[in-house]
Protein backbone atom coordinates (compact mmCIF):
# COMPACT_ATOMS: atom_id res chain seq x y z
CA UNK A 1 0.00 0.00 0.00
CA UNK A 2 2.66 2.47 1.05
CA UNK A 3 4.63 1.95 -2.18
CA UNK A 4 1.47 2.31 -4.19
CA UNK A 5 0.70 5.62 -2.54
CA UNK A 6 4.25 6.85 -3.16
CA UNK A 7 4.03 5.96 -6.81
CA UNK A 8 0.73 7.73 -7.17
CA UNK A 9 2.01 10.77 -5.32
CA UNK A 10 4.94 10.98 -7.74
CA UNK A 11 2.65 10.73 -10.72
CA UNK A 12 0.32 13.38 -9.41
CA UNK A 13 3.16 15.75 -8.71
CA UNK A 14 4.61 15.11 -12.15
CA UNK A 15 1.31 16.04 -13.77
CA UNK A 16 0.97 19.15 -11.64
CA UNK A 17 4.53 20.28 -12.29
CA UNK A 18 4.09 19.68 -16.00
CA UNK A 19 0.93 21.80 -16.00
CA UNK A 20 2.58 24.56 -13.99
CA UNK A 21 5.53 24.67 -16.38
CA UNK A 22 3.24 24.94 -19.39
CA UNK A 23 1.30 27.77 -17.75
CA UNK A 24 4.34 29.59 -16.45
CA UNK A 25 6.49 29.32 -19.57
CA UNK A 26 5.01 32.26 -21.51
CA UNK A 27 5.36 34.49 -18.49
CA UNK A 28 8.91 33.33 -18.03
CA UNK A 29 9.65 34.05 -21.68
CA UNK A 30 8.17 37.52 -21.31
CA UNK A 31 10.25 38.14 -18.21
CA UNK A 32 13.43 36.99 -19.97
CA UNK A 33 12.67 38.97 -23.12
CA UNK A 34 12.10 42.13 -21.11
CA UNK A 35 15.68 41.97 -19.84
CA UNK A 36 17.48 41.92 -23.22
CA UNK A 37 18.15 44.30 -26.05
CA UNK A 38 15.87 44.16 -29.07
CA UNK A 39 18.66 42.70 -31.15
CA UNK A 40 19.19 39.78 -28.77
CA UNK A 41 15.48 39.01 -28.61
CA UNK A 42 14.99 39.02 -32.34
CA UNK A 43 18.10 37.20 -33.47
CA UNK A 44 18.18 34.37 -30.98
CA UNK A 45 15.61 34.17 -28.23
CA UNK A 46 17.72 33.82 -25.05
CA UNK A 47 16.55 31.46 -22.32
CA UNK A 48 18.19 33.24 -19.43
CA UNK A 49 17.92 36.79 -18.06
CA UNK A 50 19.99 39.55 -19.61
CA UNK A 51 21.22 42.83 -18.20
CA UNK A 52 18.91 45.33 -19.91
CA UNK A 53 15.98 45.08 -17.47
CA UNK A 54 16.48 48.47 -15.81
CA UNK A 55 16.94 50.31 -19.11
CA UNK A 56 13.92 48.64 -20.73
CA UNK A 57 11.50 49.37 -17.89
CA UNK A 58 12.73 52.94 -17.52
CA UNK A 59 12.29 53.49 -21.25
CA UNK A 60 8.79 52.12 -21.22
CA UNK A 61 7.68 53.95 -18.08
CA UNK A 62 9.16 57.28 -19.07
CA UNK A 63 7.34 57.22 -22.38
CA UNK A 64 10.60 56.89 -24.30
CA UNK A 65 9.20 53.96 -26.29
CA UNK A 66 6.84 56.19 -28.25
CA UNK A 67 9.16 56.40 -31.19
CA UNK A 68 9.03 52.60 -31.59
CA UNK A 69 5.22 52.60 -31.57
CA UNK A 70 4.44 51.94 -27.91
CA UNK A 71 2.21 54.64 -26.41
CA UNK A 72 3.23 55.96 -22.96
CA UNK A 73 2.63 53.14 -20.49
CA UNK A 74 1.73 55.40 -17.59
CA UNK A 75 -1.21 56.90 -19.44
CA UNK A 76 -2.35 53.54 -20.76
CA UNK A 77 -2.21 52.01 -17.28
CA UNK A 78 -4.18 54.90 -15.88
CA UNK A 79 -6.78 54.53 -18.64
CA UNK A 80 -7.01 50.80 -18.01
CA UNK A 81 -7.44 51.29 -14.28
CA UNK A 82 -10.16 53.89 -14.79
CA UNK A 83 -11.97 51.66 -17.29
CA UNK A 84 -11.64 48.46 -15.24
CA UNK A 85 -12.71 50.16 -12.01
CA UNK A 86 -15.52 51.98 -13.79
CA UNK A 87 -16.85 48.78 -15.28
CA UNK A 88 -16.47 46.92 -11.98
CA UNK A 89 -18.11 49.51 -9.78
CA UNK A 90 -20.80 50.17 -12.38
CA UNK A 91 -21.60 46.52 -12.86
CA UNK A 92 -21.70 45.91 -9.12
CA UNK A 93 -24.03 48.83 -8.41
CA UNK A 94 -26.36 48.08 -11.30
CA UNK A 95 -26.60 44.38 -10.58
CA UNK A 96 -26.95 44.77 -6.80
CA UNK A 97 -29.89 47.10 -7.35
CA UNK A 98 -31.40 45.08 -10.19
CA UNK A 99 -31.30 41.90 -8.14
CA UNK A 100 -32.75 43.76 -5.15
CA UNK A 101 -35.68 44.92 -7.27
CA UNK A 102 -36.28 41.50 -8.75
CA UNK A 103 -36.14 39.64 -5.44
CA UNK A 104 -37.69 41.96 -2.86
CA UNK A 105 -40.37 43.87 -4.76
CA UNK A 106 -43.67 42.70 -6.16
CA UNK A 107 -44.39 44.51 -9.39
CA UNK A 108 -46.19 43.53 -12.59
CA UNK A 109 -44.16 41.40 -14.99
CA UNK A 110 -41.46 40.84 -12.39
CA UNK A 111 -40.52 37.46 -13.84
CA UNK A 112 -40.54 38.83 -17.36
CA UNK A 113 -38.09 41.52 -16.36
CA UNK A 114 -35.86 39.01 -14.67
CA UNK A 115 -35.75 36.82 -17.75
CA UNK A 116 -35.17 39.84 -19.95
CA UNK A 117 -32.08 40.59 -17.88
CA UNK A 118 -31.13 36.96 -18.01
CA UNK A 119 -31.21 36.59 -21.79
CA UNK A 120 -28.78 39.48 -22.19
CA UNK A 121 -26.24 36.82 -21.24
CA UNK A 122 -26.56 35.84 -24.87
CA UNK A 123 -25.79 39.36 -26.05
CA UNK A 124 -22.22 40.31 -25.12
CA UNK A 125 -20.62 43.40 -26.65
CA UNK A 126 -19.17 41.41 -29.54
CA UNK A 127 -22.65 40.48 -30.76
CA UNK A 128 -24.20 43.93 -30.50
CA UNK A 129 -21.11 45.82 -31.47
CA UNK A 130 -22.52 47.74 -34.45
CA UNK A 131 -25.61 49.20 -32.78
CA UNK A 132 -23.70 49.87 -29.57
CA UNK A 133 -21.02 51.74 -31.49
CA UNK A 134 -23.69 53.73 -33.30
CA UNK A 135 -25.31 54.76 -30.03
CA UNK A 136 -22.04 55.69 -28.37
CA UNK A 137 -20.87 57.71 -31.36
CA UNK A 138 -24.22 59.49 -31.69
CA UNK A 139 -23.99 60.45 -28.05
CA UNK A 140 -20.53 61.88 -28.72
CA UNK A 141 -18.86 59.53 -26.31
CA UNK A 142 -16.06 58.31 -28.58
CA UNK A 143 -12.63 58.78 -27.04
CA UNK A 144 -14.02 59.26 -23.54
CA UNK A 145 -14.09 57.25 -20.34
CA UNK A 146 -17.88 57.13 -20.34
CA UNK A 147 -17.77 55.69 -23.86
CA UNK A 148 -15.36 53.03 -22.67
CA UNK A 149 -17.32 52.16 -19.54
CA UNK A 150 -21.07 52.67 -19.99
CA UNK A 151 -21.82 50.08 -22.70
CA UNK A 152 -20.16 47.36 -20.61
CA UNK A 153 -21.85 48.21 -17.36
CA UNK A 154 -24.91 45.97 -17.37
CA UNK A 155 -24.24 42.46 -16.15
CA UNK A 156 -26.67 39.59 -16.19
CA UNK A 157 -24.12 37.29 -14.55
CA UNK A 158 -23.67 39.49 -11.52
CA UNK A 159 -27.41 40.19 -11.31
CA UNK A 160 -28.06 36.47 -11.33
CA UNK A 161 -25.42 35.80 -8.69
CA UNK A 162 -26.80 38.45 -6.36
CA UNK A 163 -30.35 37.25 -6.97
CA UNK A 164 -29.36 33.75 -5.90
CA UNK A 165 -27.74 35.18 -2.79
CA UNK A 166 -30.73 37.39 -1.93
CA UNK A 167 -33.05 34.42 -2.22
CA UNK A 168 -31.20 32.78 0.66
CA UNK A 169 -31.93 35.73 2.95
CA UNK A 170 -34.94 34.74 5.06
CA UNK A 171 -38.10 36.84 4.60
CA UNK A 172 -38.26 37.37 8.36
CA UNK A 173 -35.14 39.54 8.19
CA UNK A 174 -36.93 41.90 5.87
CA UNK A 175 -40.05 41.79 8.03
CA UNK A 176 -38.10 42.40 11.22
CA UNK A 177 -36.50 45.41 9.57
CA UNK A 178 -39.90 46.67 8.44
CA UNK A 179 -41.20 46.47 11.99
CA UNK A 180 -38.02 48.17 13.20
CA UNK A 181 -38.96 50.97 10.87
CA UNK A 182 -36.48 50.57 8.02
CA UNK A 183 -37.78 51.40 4.54
CA UNK A 184 -36.59 49.63 1.38
CA UNK A 185 -33.56 51.85 0.81
CA UNK A 186 -32.54 51.71 4.44
CA UNK A 187 -32.89 47.92 4.43
CA UNK A 188 -30.70 47.73 1.35
CA UNK A 189 -28.05 49.98 2.86
CA UNK A 190 -28.07 48.62 6.42
CA UNK A 191 -28.58 44.93 5.78
CA UNK A 192 -28.30 43.80 2.17
CA UNK A 193 -25.00 45.54 1.45
CA UNK A 194 -23.16 44.33 4.57
CA UNK A 195 -24.49 40.82 4.03
CA UNK A 196 -23.35 40.82 0.39
CA UNK A 197 -19.83 41.86 1.33
CA UNK A 198 -18.05 38.62 0.47
CA UNK A 199 -20.11 38.11 -2.67
CA UNK A 200 -19.24 41.62 -3.75
CA UNK A 201 -15.55 40.92 -3.21
CA UNK A 202 -15.72 37.80 -5.36
CA UNK A 203 -17.56 39.65 -8.09
CA UNK A 204 -15.11 42.53 -7.82
CA UNK A 205 -12.19 40.25 -8.71
CA UNK A 206 -13.98 38.63 -11.62
CA UNK A 207 -15.33 41.88 -13.00
CA UNK A 208 -12.08 43.81 -12.56
CA UNK A 209 -10.23 41.26 -14.64
CA UNK A 210 -13.04 41.25 -17.17
CA UNK A 211 -12.82 45.02 -17.41
CA UNK A 212 -9.05 45.06 -17.55
CA UNK A 213 -8.96 42.52 -20.36
CA UNK A 214 -11.38 44.40 -22.58
CA UNK A 215 -9.82 44.58 -26.03
CA UNK A 216 -12.30 44.86 -28.87
CA UNK A 217 -14.41 47.64 -27.45
CA UNK A 218 -11.56 50.03 -26.55
CA UNK A 219 -10.08 49.32 -29.97
CA UNK A 220 -13.28 50.60 -31.56
CA UNK A 221 -14.17 53.63 -29.51
CA UNK A 222 -10.69 55.10 -28.96
CA UNK A 223 -8.65 56.58 -31.74
CA UNK A 224 -6.83 59.16 -29.68
CA UNK A 225 -3.61 57.75 -28.25
CA UNK A 226 -4.26 59.44 -24.90
CA UNK A 227 -7.30 57.18 -24.42
CA UNK A 228 -5.56 53.87 -25.23
CA UNK A 229 -5.70 51.08 -22.69
CA UNK A 230 -2.79 48.73 -22.02
CA UNK A 231 -4.31 45.65 -23.61
CA UNK A 232 -5.14 47.33 -26.91
CA UNK A 233 -2.05 49.55 -26.83
CA UNK A 234 0.07 46.42 -26.78
CA UNK A 235 -1.60 45.12 -29.88
CA UNK A 236 -1.04 48.44 -31.62
CA UNK A 237 2.63 48.37 -30.82
CA UNK A 238 3.19 44.93 -32.36
CA UNK A 239 1.73 46.08 -35.66
CA UNK A 240 4.05 48.95 -36.58
CA UNK A 241 4.29 49.26 -40.35
CA UNK A 242 7.76 49.06 -41.86
CA UNK A 243 9.49 48.47 -38.56
CA UNK A 244 10.70 45.69 -36.38
CA UNK A 245 8.55 45.26 -33.27
CA UNK A 246 10.62 45.98 -30.19
CA UNK A 247 9.71 42.80 -28.40
CA UNK A 248 11.81 43.54 -25.37
CA UNK A 249 9.88 46.76 -24.73
CA UNK A 250 6.56 45.16 -25.63
CA UNK A 251 7.19 42.42 -23.10
CA UNK A 252 8.08 44.96 -20.44
CA UNK A 253 4.82 46.75 -21.15
CA UNK A 254 2.91 43.47 -21.08
CA UNK A 255 4.35 42.58 -17.70
CA UNK A 256 3.51 45.98 -16.31
CA UNK A 257 0.00 45.56 -17.68
CA UNK A 258 -0.24 42.23 -15.92
CA UNK A 259 0.51 43.69 -12.52
CA UNK A 260 -2.82 45.30 -11.48
CA UNK A 261 -4.98 42.20 -12.05
CA UNK A 262 -2.39 40.05 -10.31
CA UNK A 263 -2.37 42.40 -7.34
CA UNK A 264 -6.17 42.38 -7.20
CA UNK A 265 -6.23 38.59 -7.20
CA UNK A 266 -3.44 38.26 -4.65
CA UNK A 267 -4.91 40.72 -2.20
CA UNK A 268 -8.53 39.66 -2.58
CA UNK A 269 -7.98 35.94 -2.86
CA UNK A 270 -9.18 35.11 0.63
CA UNK A 271 -12.33 37.17 0.31
CA UNK A 272 -12.83 35.83 -3.18
CA UNK A 273 -12.80 32.19 -2.09
CA UNK A 274 -14.97 33.03 0.92
CA UNK A 275 -17.49 34.73 -1.34
CA UNK A 276 -17.76 31.75 -3.61
CA UNK A 277 -18.00 28.98 -1.04
CA UNK A 278 -19.46 30.51 2.10
CA UNK A 279 -22.82 31.99 2.85
CA UNK A 280 -22.97 33.93 6.06
CA UNK A 281 -25.69 32.66 8.30
Amino acid sequence: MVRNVTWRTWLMHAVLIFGTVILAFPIYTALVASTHTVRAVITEMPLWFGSQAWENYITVLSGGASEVGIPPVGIMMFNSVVMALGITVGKLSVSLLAAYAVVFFRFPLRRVFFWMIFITLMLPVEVRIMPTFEVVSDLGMLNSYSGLILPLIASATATFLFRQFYLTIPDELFEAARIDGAGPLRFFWDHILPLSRTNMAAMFVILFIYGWNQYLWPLLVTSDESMYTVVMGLQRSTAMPDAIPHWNLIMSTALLGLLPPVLVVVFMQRLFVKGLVETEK
Partner: protein
Amino acid sequence: MAEIKLEEVRKSYGPAEVVHGVDLTIPDGEFLVLVGPSGCGKSTILRMIAGLETVTSGRISIDRRIVNRLEPKDRDIAMVFQNYALYPHMSVYQNMAYGLKVRGVHKADIHNRVNEAAVTLGLGEYLDRKPRALSGGQRQRVAMGRALVRNPKAFLFDEPLSNLDAKLRNQMRVELKQLHARLKNTFVYVTHDQVEAMTLGQRIMVLRDGNVEQVGTPDEIYNQPASTFVAGFIGAPSMNILSGSVDGDAIRFAGKAGLVHAGSLPGREVKIGVRPEHLCLRKEGEGDYCQVRAKVALIEPLGGDTVVHCRLNGGSDENIIIRVHPDEKVGENETAILYFKADTLHLFDAETQRRINGVQVCAG
Protein backbone atom coordinates in the same frame (compact mmCIF):
# COMPACT_ATOMS: atom_id res chain seq x y z
CA MET B 1 -50.12 49.69 26.36
CA ALA B 2 -53.05 49.32 24.07
CA GLU B 3 -56.23 47.51 23.30
CA ILE B 4 -56.24 45.54 20.06
CA LYS B 5 -59.55 45.03 18.32
CA LEU B 6 -60.39 42.85 15.32
CA GLU B 7 -63.77 43.24 13.61
CA GLU B 8 -64.93 40.75 10.98
CA VAL B 9 -61.34 40.34 9.79
CA ARG B 10 -60.95 38.21 6.70
CA LYS B 11 -57.96 37.23 4.62
CA SER B 12 -57.93 35.72 1.14
CA TYR B 13 -55.09 34.65 -1.10
CA GLY B 14 -56.64 34.88 -4.53
CA PRO B 15 -59.91 32.98 -4.43
CA ALA B 16 -58.96 31.01 -1.31
CA GLU B 17 -60.15 32.52 1.95
CA VAL B 18 -57.93 31.46 4.84
CA VAL B 19 -59.37 33.55 7.67
CA HIS B 20 -63.15 33.62 7.76
CA GLY B 21 -64.20 36.62 9.77
CA VAL B 22 -62.57 36.92 13.16
CA ASP B 23 -63.97 39.18 15.89
CA LEU B 24 -61.80 39.69 18.90
CA THR B 25 -61.06 42.34 21.47
CA ILE B 26 -57.81 42.04 23.36
CA PRO B 27 -57.99 44.34 26.37
CA ASP B 28 -55.00 46.43 27.38
CA GLY B 29 -52.41 44.32 29.17
CA GLU B 30 -53.84 40.93 28.31
CA PHE B 31 -51.75 37.91 27.36
CA LEU B 32 -53.76 36.33 24.56
CA VAL B 33 -52.69 33.09 22.92
CA LEU B 34 -53.75 32.08 19.42
CA VAL B 35 -53.55 28.33 19.17
CA GLY B 36 -54.44 25.77 16.54
CA PRO B 37 -52.95 23.18 14.21
CA SER B 38 -50.72 24.30 11.35
CA GLY B 39 -52.62 26.04 8.58
CA CYS B 40 -55.41 27.25 10.86
CA GLY B 41 -54.65 30.91 10.13
CA LYS B 42 -53.20 31.87 13.51
CA SER B 43 -49.96 33.23 12.07
CA THR B 44 -51.86 35.06 9.36
CA ILE B 45 -53.97 36.83 11.98
CA LEU B 46 -50.86 37.83 13.90
CA ARG B 47 -49.16 39.05 10.74
CA MET B 48 -52.25 41.10 9.88
CA ILE B 49 -52.07 42.73 13.30
CA ALA B 50 -48.37 43.41 12.69
CA GLY B 51 -49.07 44.84 9.25
CA LEU B 52 -46.98 42.29 7.38
CA GLU B 53 -50.10 41.02 5.59
CA THR B 54 -52.85 43.14 4.17
CA VAL B 55 -56.36 42.76 5.54
CA THR B 56 -58.79 41.60 2.84
CA SER B 57 -61.83 42.90 4.69
CA GLY B 58 -62.75 43.93 8.19
CA ARG B 59 -61.02 46.29 10.57
CA ILE B 60 -58.06 46.06 12.92
CA SER B 61 -57.52 48.79 15.46
CA ILE B 62 -54.74 49.28 17.96
CA ASP B 63 -55.37 51.74 20.75
CA ARG B 64 -58.67 52.80 19.11
CA ARG B 65 -56.92 53.75 15.89
CA ILE B 66 -57.71 51.80 12.74
CA VAL B 67 -54.41 50.49 11.40
CA ASN B 68 -55.50 48.61 8.27
CA ARG B 69 -53.53 50.89 6.00
CA LEU B 70 -50.63 51.67 8.30
CA GLU B 71 -47.12 50.38 7.71
CA PRO B 72 -45.78 48.05 10.43
CA LYS B 73 -43.42 50.72 11.69
CA ASP B 74 -46.29 53.15 12.26
CA ARG B 75 -48.32 50.70 14.34
CA ASP B 76 -45.94 50.83 17.30
CA ILE B 77 -45.81 47.08 17.81
CA ALA B 78 -42.85 44.74 18.21
CA MET B 79 -42.66 41.20 16.93
CA VAL B 80 -40.59 38.17 17.84
CA PHE B 81 -40.16 35.62 15.07
CA GLN B 82 -39.83 31.87 15.25
CA ASN B 83 -36.36 31.85 13.65
CA TYR B 84 -35.44 35.01 15.65
CA ALA B 85 -34.66 36.99 12.46
CA LEU B 86 -31.63 38.61 14.04
CA TYR B 87 -29.45 40.70 11.75
CA PRO B 88 -26.49 38.35 11.25
CA HIS B 89 -23.91 41.03 10.54
CA MET B 90 -24.72 43.08 13.61
CA SER B 91 -23.65 42.56 17.20
CA VAL B 92 -26.19 41.88 19.91
CA TYR B 93 -26.02 45.54 20.91
CA GLN B 94 -26.57 46.74 17.34
CA ASN B 95 -29.42 44.29 16.87
CA MET B 96 -31.25 45.66 19.86
CA ALA B 97 -30.38 49.27 19.08
CA TYR B 98 -31.35 49.14 15.41
CA GLY B 99 -35.05 49.89 15.78
CA LEU B 100 -34.27 52.87 17.99
CA LYS B 101 -31.54 54.10 15.68
CA VAL B 102 -33.86 54.04 12.68
CA ARG B 103 -36.39 56.01 14.69
CA GLY B 104 -33.77 58.62 15.45
CA VAL B 105 -33.62 58.11 19.20
CA HIS B 106 -30.76 59.91 20.89
CA LYS B 107 -27.57 57.85 21.24
CA ALA B 108 -27.31 58.12 25.00
CA ASP B 109 -30.94 57.13 25.33
CA ILE B 110 -30.38 54.07 23.09
CA HIS B 111 -27.39 53.13 25.21
CA ASN B 112 -29.42 53.23 28.42
CA ARG B 113 -32.37 51.32 27.06
CA VAL B 114 -30.28 48.58 25.44
CA ASN B 115 -28.21 48.09 28.56
CA GLU B 116 -31.31 47.98 30.72
CA ALA B 117 -32.90 45.34 28.48
CA ALA B 118 -29.64 43.39 28.38
CA VAL B 119 -29.53 43.26 32.16
CA THR B 120 -33.18 42.18 32.31
CA LEU B 121 -32.55 39.35 29.86
CA GLY B 122 -29.14 38.35 31.20
CA LEU B 123 -27.36 39.34 28.00
CA GLY B 124 -24.96 41.84 29.56
CA GLU B 125 -21.76 40.00 28.69
CA TYR B 126 -22.81 39.12 25.14
CA LEU B 127 -23.47 42.61 23.81
CA ASP B 128 -20.44 42.57 21.50
CA ARG B 129 -21.07 39.12 20.07
CA LYS B 130 -22.54 38.32 16.70
CA PRO B 131 -25.73 36.23 16.70
CA ARG B 132 -23.94 33.22 15.21
CA ALA B 133 -21.78 33.01 18.35
CA LEU B 134 -24.86 32.63 20.55
CA SER B 135 -26.90 29.59 21.56
CA GLY B 136 -30.53 29.22 20.54
CA GLY B 137 -31.82 30.42 23.88
CA GLN B 138 -29.56 33.47 23.84
CA ARG B 139 -30.66 34.35 20.31
CA GLN B 140 -34.24 34.12 21.46
CA ARG B 141 -33.45 36.50 24.28
CA VAL B 142 -31.86 38.95 21.87
CA ALA B 143 -34.99 38.82 19.74
CA MET B 144 -37.04 39.62 22.82
CA GLY B 145 -34.61 42.35 23.79
CA ARG B 146 -35.04 43.92 20.38
CA ALA B 147 -38.77 44.10 21.07
CA LEU B 148 -38.31 45.21 24.66
CA VAL B 149 -36.13 48.28 24.06
CA ARG B 150 -38.74 49.79 21.78
CA ASN B 151 -41.30 49.82 24.58
CA PRO B 152 -44.11 49.30 22.06
CA LYS B 153 -47.87 49.31 22.54
CA ALA B 154 -48.08 45.57 22.03
CA PHE B 155 -45.79 42.57 21.68
CA LEU B 156 -46.48 39.96 19.01
CA PHE B 157 -44.90 36.53 19.23
CA ASP B 158 -44.92 34.06 16.33
CA GLU B 159 -44.11 30.64 17.78
CA PRO B 160 -41.05 32.06 19.52
CA LEU B 161 -40.14 28.89 21.41
CA SER B 162 -40.56 26.33 18.63
CA ASN B 163 -36.89 26.25 17.68
CA LEU B 164 -35.67 25.59 21.21
CA ASP B 165 -35.11 22.23 22.84
CA ALA B 166 -37.66 21.01 25.36
CA LYS B 167 -35.81 22.02 28.50
CA LEU B 168 -34.99 25.50 27.32
CA ARG B 169 -38.55 25.92 26.10
CA ASN B 170 -39.91 25.30 29.60
CA GLN B 171 -37.44 27.77 31.05
CA MET B 172 -38.20 30.47 28.47
CA ARG B 173 -41.91 29.93 28.99
CA VAL B 174 -41.56 30.81 32.64
CA GLU B 175 -39.43 33.83 31.77
CA LEU B 176 -42.01 35.02 29.26
CA LYS B 177 -44.72 34.80 31.84
CA GLN B 178 -42.64 36.76 34.34
CA LEU B 179 -41.84 39.33 31.66
CA HIS B 180 -45.52 39.87 30.99
CA ALA B 181 -46.27 40.15 34.68
CA ARG B 182 -43.64 42.87 34.98
CA LEU B 183 -44.36 44.83 31.80
CA LYS B 184 -48.16 44.51 31.98
CA ASN B 185 -48.21 45.10 28.24
CA THR B 186 -50.53 43.57 25.66
CA PHE B 187 -49.07 40.28 24.42
CA VAL B 188 -50.39 38.32 21.45
CA TYR B 189 -48.77 34.94 21.20
CA VAL B 190 -49.12 32.36 18.44
CA THR B 191 -48.32 28.72 19.09
CA HIS B 192 -49.36 25.25 18.04
CA ASP B 193 -48.37 23.88 21.40
CA GLN B 194 -51.33 23.50 23.74
CA VAL B 195 -49.07 23.41 26.80
CA GLU B 196 -47.73 26.87 25.95
CA ALA B 197 -51.27 28.05 25.32
CA MET B 198 -52.58 26.76 28.64
CA THR B 199 -49.66 27.95 30.75
CA LEU B 200 -49.10 31.38 29.21
CA GLY B 201 -52.49 32.63 28.12
CA GLN B 202 -54.83 34.67 30.23
CA ARG B 203 -57.22 33.98 27.42
CA ILE B 204 -56.89 31.50 24.58
CA MET B 205 -58.36 31.63 21.10
CA VAL B 206 -58.57 28.23 19.46
CA LEU B 207 -58.61 28.33 15.69
CA ARG B 208 -59.33 25.73 13.08
CA ASP B 209 -59.25 26.21 9.30
CA GLY B 210 -59.57 29.96 9.64
CA ASN B 211 -62.57 29.80 11.98
CA VAL B 212 -62.69 30.63 15.65
CA GLU B 213 -63.62 27.50 17.59
CA GLN B 214 -63.58 29.03 21.04
CA VAL B 215 -62.26 32.01 22.98
CA GLY B 216 -61.93 31.74 26.72
CA THR B 217 -59.73 31.47 29.75
CA PRO B 218 -57.58 28.33 29.99
CA ASP B 219 -60.02 27.04 32.59
CA GLU B 220 -63.02 27.51 30.31
CA ILE B 221 -61.21 26.00 27.34
CA TYR B 222 -60.17 22.96 29.34
CA ASN B 223 -63.29 22.36 31.36
CA GLN B 224 -65.97 23.50 28.96
CA PRO B 225 -64.63 22.89 25.45
CA ALA B 226 -67.03 24.33 22.92
CA SER B 227 -66.53 21.55 20.40
CA THR B 228 -65.02 18.11 19.99
CA PHE B 229 -62.12 19.80 18.17
CA VAL B 230 -61.23 21.98 21.14
CA ALA B 231 -61.76 19.02 23.47
CA GLY B 232 -59.32 16.93 21.44
CA PHE B 233 -56.78 19.69 20.83
CA ILE B 234 -56.33 20.95 24.37
CA GLY B 235 -55.01 18.49 26.92
CA ALA B 236 -52.49 15.68 26.59
CA PRO B 237 -53.29 12.88 26.24
CA SER B 238 -56.34 14.28 24.54
CA MET B 239 -59.92 13.78 25.62
CA ASN B 240 -61.59 10.47 24.76
CA ILE B 241 -64.52 11.00 22.43
CA LEU B 242 -66.99 8.11 22.30
CA SER B 243 -70.09 7.71 20.15
CA GLY B 244 -73.40 7.36 21.89
CA SER B 245 -76.93 6.82 20.67
CA VAL B 246 -80.00 8.37 22.24
CA ASP B 247 -82.78 5.96 23.13
CA GLY B 248 -85.62 7.73 24.91
CA ASP B 249 -84.12 9.21 28.02
CA ALA B 250 -81.15 6.85 27.93
CA ILE B 251 -77.86 7.25 26.13
CA ARG B 252 -76.10 4.06 25.14
CA PHE B 253 -72.41 3.89 24.41
CA ALA B 254 -69.59 1.36 24.39
CA GLY B 255 -71.92 -1.54 23.80
CA LYS B 256 -74.36 -1.60 26.63
CA ALA B 257 -73.16 0.97 29.12
CA GLY B 258 -75.72 3.66 29.65
CA LEU B 259 -76.52 7.06 30.96
CA VAL B 260 -79.80 8.68 31.84
CA HIS B 261 -80.30 12.23 30.77
CA ALA B 262 -82.76 14.90 31.70
CA GLY B 263 -83.39 17.49 29.05
CA SER B 264 -83.81 17.48 25.33
CA LEU B 265 -81.04 16.35 22.98
CA PRO B 266 -80.89 17.70 19.44
CA GLY B 267 -80.50 14.40 17.61
CA ARG B 268 -80.30 10.67 17.96
CA GLU B 269 -76.52 10.63 17.97
CA VAL B 270 -74.23 12.26 20.53
CA LYS B 271 -70.54 12.29 21.32
CA ILE B 272 -69.42 11.68 24.86
CA GLY B 273 -66.13 13.16 25.98
CA VAL B 274 -64.14 12.01 28.99
CA ARG B 275 -60.71 13.26 29.97
CA PRO B 276 -58.11 10.52 30.58
CA GLU B 277 -57.55 11.71 34.15
CA HIS B 278 -61.25 11.34 34.97
CA LEU B 279 -61.15 7.63 34.28
CA CYS B 280 -59.96 5.28 36.97
CA LEU B 281 -59.58 1.61 37.61
CA ARG B 282 -61.60 1.56 40.83
CA LYS B 283 -64.23 3.65 42.56
CA GLU B 284 -62.91 6.18 44.98
CA GLY B 285 -65.54 6.84 47.60
CA GLU B 286 -69.15 7.38 46.83
CA GLY B 287 -70.21 8.95 43.59
CA ASP B 288 -72.34 8.56 40.55
CA TYR B 289 -70.01 6.23 38.64
CA CYS B 290 -70.44 4.89 35.13
CA GLN B 291 -68.44 1.88 34.14
CA VAL B 292 -67.17 0.35 30.92
CA ARG B 293 -65.21 -2.80 30.25
CA ALA B 294 -62.06 -2.53 28.21
CA LYS B 295 -59.02 -4.54 27.25
CA VAL B 296 -55.62 -3.01 28.00
CA ALA B 297 -53.68 -2.66 24.76
CA LEU B 298 -50.60 -0.66 25.72
CA ILE B 299 -49.05 0.87 28.83
CA GLU B 300 -46.89 4.00 28.76
CA PRO B 301 -45.25 4.74 32.11
CA LEU B 302 -44.35 8.43 32.28
CA GLY B 303 -42.97 8.31 35.81
CA GLY B 304 -45.34 10.73 37.47
CA ASP B 305 -48.31 8.88 36.09
CA THR B 306 -49.06 6.08 33.68
CA VAL B 307 -51.01 6.31 30.45
CA VAL B 308 -52.97 3.19 29.62
CA HIS B 309 -54.36 2.65 26.11
CA CYS B 310 -57.43 0.44 26.11
CA ARG B 311 -59.86 -0.97 23.60
CA LEU B 312 -63.49 -0.91 24.62
CA ASN B 313 -65.35 -4.18 24.77
CA GLY B 314 -68.73 -4.50 23.21
CA GLY B 315 -68.08 -4.38 19.49
CA SER B 316 -67.78 -0.62 19.13
CA ASP B 317 -64.02 -0.96 18.58
CA GLU B 318 -63.31 2.41 20.16
CA ASN B 319 -60.03 3.26 21.82
CA ILE B 320 -59.94 4.89 25.19
CA ILE B 321 -56.95 6.34 26.99
CA ILE B 322 -56.75 6.67 30.75
CA ARG B 323 -54.22 8.28 33.02
CA VAL B 324 -53.66 6.55 36.34
CA HIS B 325 -51.33 6.65 39.31
CA PRO B 326 -48.09 4.74 38.59
CA ASP B 327 -48.79 2.41 41.52
CA GLU B 328 -51.86 0.98 39.78
CA LYS B 329 -51.07 -2.58 38.82
CA VAL B 330 -52.42 -3.33 35.41
CA GLY B 331 -51.04 -5.65 32.74
CA GLU B 332 -51.28 -5.57 28.97
CA ASN B 333 -54.03 -7.74 27.47
CA GLU B 334 -55.91 -7.81 30.78
CA THR B 335 -59.55 -6.87 30.86
CA ALA B 336 -60.25 -3.95 33.15
CA ILE B 337 -63.32 -2.12 34.34
CA LEU B 338 -63.01 1.64 33.90
CA TYR B 339 -65.00 3.98 36.11
CA PHE B 340 -65.82 7.63 35.63
CA LYS B 341 -68.19 10.01 37.32
CA ALA B 342 -71.15 11.11 35.27
CA ASP B 343 -70.57 14.76 36.13
CA THR B 344 -67.09 14.74 34.59
CA LEU B 345 -68.23 13.91 31.11
CA HIS B 346 -68.93 16.28 28.23
CA LEU B 347 -71.75 15.92 25.72
CA PHE B 348 -71.39 17.01 22.10
CA ASP B 349 -73.82 17.05 19.19
CA ALA B 350 -72.67 14.29 16.83
CA GLU B 351 -73.71 16.29 13.79
CA THR B 352 -72.38 19.79 14.51
CA GLN B 353 -69.63 18.61 16.89
CA ARG B 354 -70.65 21.49 19.21
CA ARG B 355 -71.02 21.20 22.94
CA ILE B 356 -74.47 20.47 24.37
CA ASN B 357 -75.12 22.57 27.42
CA GLY B 358 -77.85 22.32 30.02
CA VAL B 359 -78.41 18.58 29.92
CA GLN B 360 -78.03 16.73 33.21
CA VAL B 361 -76.80 13.17 33.04
CA CYS B 362 -76.39 10.44 35.60
CA ALA B 363 -75.26 6.84 35.45
CA GLY B 364 -78.03 4.48 34.52
